[in-house]
């Protein structure tokens, strides 16, 4: 039993370890280790396209996660007092957002937005004082943030709602009995209790957006995110530079995840006492 478990853990972690190992390869060959060097990290970090893709990914991940966390938390709080058919309606929306495959979401967003933009752009051009300078609606940051935020929104609602339902209600009643205003109760009793869930939801949303390839592949337009850059590099061939970028991406999402897990665990522990 123990040996089996060890084997599964090795299966899960050896591939990651191999990428990390080969990212320090001195040689040019991606699959033959010839010596230790950090040159590929330097090469990756001084590659203009990598830096730009990284900045794009970070912008999209942070913006979509912040919006999804704010609106998701508000929705989760409001859903406490929603029952009946409205409740069923919201549950259905959240369920669809999580269950419909990412690739279908990507396609749907692509064709819906392109169709709407094709309608709106001539109207915008006609209304604009100077036709040449009229803004052109196109795929890019906006569509990436909106599409990633959709999944993150559902994610944040699920996580925060779970925490709200596990919350100690007597504290809220006590606070109200002792004369606190509804906002005072929220700021001093509810918020501290659900904050770990909000933070964890935010970090998971950042991780999801930062790692997502398939939705971005459809809705990125002319923008390149880091996963899109990595995918097209792999298509051109396996290189040590890709290993270095991959290791950096893994390190970043691992640290985000461990932080999110630690926060959730601590939240759970404090809820029990």
């Amino acid at each position, binding site marked *: *039993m123990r040996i*089996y*478990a060890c084997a*599964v853990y090795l299966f*899960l*972690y050896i*591939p*990651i370890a*191999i*990428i990390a190992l080969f990212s320090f390869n001195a040689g040019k060959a991606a*699959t*033959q280790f010839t010596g230790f060097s950090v040159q590929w990290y330097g090469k990756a970090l001084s590659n203009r396209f990598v830096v730009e893709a990284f900045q794009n990914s970070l912008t999209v991940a942070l913006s979509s996660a912040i919006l999804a966390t704010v609106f*998701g938390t*508000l*929705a989760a709080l*409001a*859903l406490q*007092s*929603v029952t009946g058919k409205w409740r069923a309606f*919201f549950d259905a*929306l959240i*369920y*669809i*957002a999580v*269950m419909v*495959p990412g*690739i*279908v*979401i990507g*396609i*749907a*967003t*692509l*064709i*819906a937005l*392109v*169709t709407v933009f094709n309608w709106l752009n001539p109207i915008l051009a006609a209304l604009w004082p100077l036709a040449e300078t009229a803004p052109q609606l196109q795929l890019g940051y906006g569509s990436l943030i*909106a599409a990633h*935020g*959709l999944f993150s*929104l559902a994610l944040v*609602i*699920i996580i925060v709602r779970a925490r709200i339902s596990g919350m100690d209600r007597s504290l809220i009643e006590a606070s109200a009995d002792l004369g606190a205003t509804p906002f005072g109760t929220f700021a001093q009793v509810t918020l501290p209790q659900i904050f770990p869930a909000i933070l964890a939801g935010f970090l*998971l949303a950042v*991780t999801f957006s930062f*790692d997502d*390839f*398939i939705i971005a592949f459809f809705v990125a337009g002319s923008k390149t995110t880091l996963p899109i850059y*990595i*995918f097209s590099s*792999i298509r051109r061939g*396996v290189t040590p530079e890709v290993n270095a970028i*991959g290791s950096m*991406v*893994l390190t970043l*999402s*691992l640290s985000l*995840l*461990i932080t999110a*897990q630690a926060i959730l665990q601590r939240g759970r522990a404090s809820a029990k006492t």
Partner: protein
Amino acid sequence: MTPRYRTALFLLPATAWFITMLVLPLIVVFVFSFGTRGPAGGYAPGFSFENFLNLGARWAAFKNTMVLAPVGTIACAVIAYPLAYFLALRVSAKRRTLLLILVIVPFWTSILIRSYAWIFILGGKGIPALIAWMGLGSIQLINTPFAVLVGIVYGYLPLMVFPIYVSLEQLDKRLLEASADLGCPPGRTFLSVTLPLSMPGVATGSMLVFILLMGEFLIPAMLGGGKVFFVGNALVDLFLQSRNWAFGSAVAVALVLIMLVTVTAYMRATRRWAGGRADVSLM
């Protein structure tokens, strides 16, 4: 502001987001699936079932998906079960948390980079070179259904372990003691007590993995090398290369329909089988 208005105000942004970015786009896909290809690609309005009648043109993609998604799901369940059992019943509570986190963490890291790793391992200079060196002849691993299957198990194992673990952890341990006290051998206890009671977890995990596999693109693209392709790969080709949005929408609608039918049938079957006591919950 009355609580009623506040609730509505709080829900407004999320609702607007869900409607504009989820509900409307899905309706667009549905409508487009009845249209035709525009002269320069894209979409031209129309109403016919032609796209659906032509789905046979992408039969290979549907066939691969309908074979490898269930096989991959079963492989995940078979490999995940013993690990979940070990974590739930054979590990001290203190070490359990760490071991569980170690299972979940890979799932949240980039599947792109994780399947890329297998290009190394299964590629010409990886395991095939090792086998040739041992004098066992030459084999091709990368760009085969086997490679895709390995990628699937690697990618989705964590998602399967977790629900099975939860159902085993919640299992009333007194039942196991009772069974042992009444003279039941361990193997029999497992088959007639533990396994049936943990079936809801297996059902939930299988459903999650199966749904995600139906829409998979990256793993076959990276490890199947154009030879083993899923519906997801056909969709990328139809929307981004050949730009036939109407037919592509029909493929997407067919995919979602197959998913819905399979999942509903599966849920009915597991519910009946579990005699109504099992609640197949997804979250």
